[in-house]
């Protein structure tokens, strides 16, 4: 039982940065960004390749995050270029957002293979950031110790995002997703705010990739498949279970959602569900969660 809880918490906290990134694109920017399926393994690939190349794991992790930032920039720039040719209708604009993410994600598959030189980079016997923390403080980075360290990092990242979204630039970024026409009329270049927002979101996603690679001891080109769905599951569960009374609060909700989602996965695995069936299970979960408001409305009408 405790094993289920600790592994669920561990995974939930490792993936909460990705879920925060998905929250920023989907909810704050109103941009369904599919880049994340590529930027998560990008963070992992860059970090793993640099560590196995003899670099410090701290530098490697930072480089992984920076790579994710650039991936987000690319999606933002592609959206700007694609959007220029569109009719400007809401549907066309939505299409441009989806397509921009898909293009970057597809391109990143090749980039990730190139970065690693193969489809999988093992980190056996090499120090990652967790091993370095072990050496520094003399405590084993596993179980509850690891969880406490990850909670500390999650809280720091949460407060940095919280602060950022309340700065002047952060307000413009939120307004870009909330009422783009109005914020443009206020003199904000929404193409720029969107590019920056996408960059930050994908940097967070890549952070998860970098940490997961070091924690599980390898980076794999296929580890990003389904990231967007898992991210959405975390965001929606967080909002439904813990509420969204303010931006500051919803950031905690989303972290909670990530943990609940991974706990569910851990329990499912324990109940004997094959790991290969998890993606379908997640997809079904997201469909159910997304349809709750519609179903509720229909029921009320009847």
């Amino acid at each position: 039982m405790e094993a289920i809880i600790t592994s669920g918490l561990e995974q939930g906290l490792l993936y909460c940065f990705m879920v925060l990134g998905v929250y920023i694109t989907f909810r704050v920017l109103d941009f369904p960004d599919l880049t994340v399926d590529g930027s998560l393994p990008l963070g992992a690939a860059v970090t793993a390749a640099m560590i196995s190349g003899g670099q410090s794991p701290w530098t490697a992790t930072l480089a992984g995050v920076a790579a994710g930032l650039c991936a987000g920039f690319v999606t933002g720039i592609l959206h700007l270029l694609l959007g220029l040719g569109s009719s400007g209708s809401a549907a066309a604009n939505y299409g441009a957002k989806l397509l921009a993410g898909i293009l970057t994600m597809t391109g990143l598959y090749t980039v990730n293979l190139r970065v690693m030189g193969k489809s999988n980079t093992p980190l056996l016997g090499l120090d990652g950031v967790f091993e370095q923390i072990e050496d520094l403080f003399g405590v084993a980075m596993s179980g509850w110790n690891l969880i406490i360290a990850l909670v500390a990092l999650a809280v720091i990242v949460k407060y940095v995002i919280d602060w950022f979204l309340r700065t002047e630039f952060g307000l413009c970024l939120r307004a870009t997703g909330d009422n783009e026409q109005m914020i443009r009329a206020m003199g904000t270049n929404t193409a720029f705010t969107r590019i920056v927002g996408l960059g930050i979101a994908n940097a967070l996603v890549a952070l998860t990739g970098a940490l997961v690679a070091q924690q599980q001891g390898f980076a794999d080109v296929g580890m990003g498949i389904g990231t967007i769905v898992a991210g959405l599951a975390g965001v929606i569960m967080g909002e439904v279970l813990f509420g969204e009374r303010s931006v500051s609060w919803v950031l905690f909700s989303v972290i909670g959602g990530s943990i609940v989602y991974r706990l569910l996965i851990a329990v499912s695995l324990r109940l004997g569900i094959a790991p290969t069936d998890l993606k379908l299970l997640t997809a079904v979960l997201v469909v159910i969660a997304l349809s709750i408001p519609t179903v509720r409305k229909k029921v009320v009408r009847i």
Partner: protein
Amino acid sequence: MSRPASLELQAVRKVFFPGTANEVVALNGIDLEVPVGQFVSIIGSNGSGKSTLLNTIAGMYPVSSGCVLLDGVDVTRQREFQRSRLIGRVFQDPTAGTAPSMTIEENLAISFMRERRSGLRLGVTNRRREFMRTHLEPLGMGLEHRLKAQVNKLSGGQRQAMSLLMATESEPSILLLDEHTAALDPKVAATIMDLTAKMVSERGLTTLMVTHNMELALRYGERLIMMHEGRVVLDLGPTEKEALQVSDLIDMFHKVAGEAFAVDRLLLE
């Protein structure tokens, strides 16, 4: 702070879908000079080009030919967000001028930074809150006590008052009002119109107000312009305007347009 500016349009043409079967000449050679601080009302039937005129001044889309000058500076080639630093706009839809899921104080903070690049300072500070309260109080809607309320919890009139406040916050060079009271119920519309007149006169804003309502057009503003088929067909100054009644205006429209006058919302309001 910018300051009210003069506006000049020189032979502005705007053609939508040029060269196709759907070609529409929305503006057909507009020449217009508005001196600093003038309040102009613009009327015309549906499709006469009133809204296109405002959108063209705001830079929402490029002109087909002609120039737009603010204080003598050609801004025709400037992009919308660049020009927006100088132009305040309020739209017909009360939800258009504010960010719905953000709070009152966050929305106002955005309007404070219209003219400069937004940085990494906190958007809402206690000093700014004080400033916001002093600006919200004259609206008489009690919004100064609800700074942390989400804007989507406000009524249409309250949201439109917010939009107006945000559009005029940094004394825009030009204020563009696009039927900004048309979607409100009559009592609220009157309140917003009074607020508008007060803000415009207090700050001496150069203002263009598009309206369907002839009575509003006659009562407010120092100058009245009537548009028809993408042209300015009537341009009246304050003295001519004062002597006019709605019925005179309709007669004039018949004469100028030279065709049957569609009985639309103009007459109903």
